[in-house]
């Protein structure tokens, strides 16, 4: 390191350099590890370094997040008695077949099942995943709204959208897509 500085000084002495192009020499400390901020996370915004300063070349170590505390997730069990319904591409309109299926589901919900139901909206892989998150929710809400008109209390029904993240069929053809554009009905415990 010292040798390097010496050489640097020697080079400086050479007359060929413009004043503005003079050798710069500096010590850059390795960046400190970012202190663990208390939640909510504070943005550690370091001051912008002065003009010719070089970034430290040693990266900070990205530490793996500590294994997160196991959260109690809502237990969702699929109920085979409640039939899935299906949609056309980029649509959340209920077909007559879907309405008939929902009528059957409503009857089960009113006569045989007492628990709460989560309606899961799903999409096929062709749409964008971002847009599909919103579309899946519209599909779930379409079913919920119809079930409510059939007399199922709204407080028994909730929705979640999985967009295209949980396909029922991993295939990449129309058969698979048709199976994936769906609502599923799950009992929440």
């Amino acid at each position, binding site marked *: 390191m010292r040798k390097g500085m010496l050489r640097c000084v020697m080079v400086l002495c050479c007359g060929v350099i413009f004043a503005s192009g003079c050798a710069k020499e500096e010590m850059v400390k390795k960046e400190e590890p970012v202190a663990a901020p208390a939640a909510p996370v504070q943005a550690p915004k370091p001051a912008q370094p002065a003009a010719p300063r070089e970034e430290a070349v040693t990266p900070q170590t990205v530490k793996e997040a500590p294994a997160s505390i196991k959260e109690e997730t809502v237990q969702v069990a699929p109920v085979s008695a409640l039939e899935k319904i299906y949609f056309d591409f980029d649509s959340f309109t209920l077909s007559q077949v879907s309405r008939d299926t929902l009528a059957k589901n409503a009857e089960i919900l009113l006569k045989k099942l007492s628990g709460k139901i989560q309606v899961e909206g799903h999409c096929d892989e062709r749409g964008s995943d971002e*847009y599909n*998150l*919103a579309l899946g929710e519209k599909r779930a809400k379409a079913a919920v709204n119809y079930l409510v008109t059939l007399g199922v209390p709204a407080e028994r029904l909730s929705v979640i959208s999985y967009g295209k993240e949980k396909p029922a069929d991993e295939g990449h053809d129309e058969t698979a897509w048709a199976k994936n554009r769906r609502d599923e009905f799950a009992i929440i415990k």
Partner: protein
Amino acid sequence: MKKIICIVALLAILPITISAGQSYLEVTAPGNRQLQLAVANPVPLSGGENTGIARDIAELFRFDMTLAGPFSVMATTPTDSKSGIRPGDFSFDSWKGAGADLLIKSGYTVSGTTLTLECRLYDVTRGQELAAKRYSGSVTDLRRIAHTFSDEIMQVTTGERGPFTGKIAFVSKQTGNKELYLMDYDGYNVQRLSRNGSINLNPDFSPSGKEIIYTSYKKGNPDLYRRDIFSGKEARISAHRGINVTASYSPDGNRIALAMSKDGNSEIYIIGKDGKQLARLTNNSAIDVSPAWSPDGRQIAFVSDRLGKPQVFVMNADGSGVRRLTTSGAYNVSPRWSPKGDRIVYCRQQGGFQIFAINPDGSGDTQLTSQGSNEHPRWSPDGRYITFSSQRGGREAIYVMRADGSGQVMVSRGKGSDTHPAWSPRW
């Protein structure tokens, strides 16, 4: 233990007079002629030869400079000898003879776990040095060190530093679940960030590069999380009933735009970094998602199907002045505003997806990709490159390309399907 890193800028002289506002390239290679760039084999400065390190350095420079744009990286290098890398220690003749305009010379010293890398960029025609840097660090930081000189080359030749020391955050399904990962922009040094076994989506870097926000189903609902990358600390900042998705940091880093459905259906909102709602920007029965800030923070591009099919719209950051941006194609999504503000990149569904770019006034609509299906375009922080996910035959992987669509190259090498890349600010 604190290690002191010494970086010595040995020389930084410009060989020719360049007036303010003009870069070396504009003076040297007018008319966008690509400069022939040669990468000399890295040599040991002291101590023994390390062929592994030498090969890695040379390959890295070749990869960075090939993507860079202004250069055509020469396939072969002249047999220039055992010669030195400093001015006067070698002859330019063989390089001149081979047709090189620019030459990268580098030398390394490995001492225990410490690596010293000295890099020099030469203008072969004039026989002058354009940049010289010596970096010291851990041997394990070899790639970061070398990318730093690539960024420097861009600074010297174009007047703007390169983004090659940046990282790419992305989502990978290599464990079977969509988890968050981080890698060098060129696919090396992959590190896993999340480990929750759930679905994790849409990472976005804070302007400081120190944090990411992302949507996760890990507590059941698609909620928004803000995570400090280095400590791993995180907070759930938006957990409203329904979706909390497609979040994007404002350019000043103080606000976050996102889509939430808490008021009935998916609308665009602005929240603070603590999750407090600051504004609701859209209000209609259609789907509104994927907000993307203009670099001055005054406008937001977003996706809406209010006219039937998803299209890209632009509005002021207070929700006023909504106008349709994309008028061609039946299904346009995922807009992202370039850091310089001049282009908006987005995806169009036509069979699969293709990436397009358009001017903010709706003119200059240009298709950038055509092979396979391409999604999730994001700009490099300097706006000269775009990272995206692509499915070309096999699994989905992360690619990078120049802003005009040229130079497309796969960078992720994982075993799973890799999507949702986001290019960090300088690391």
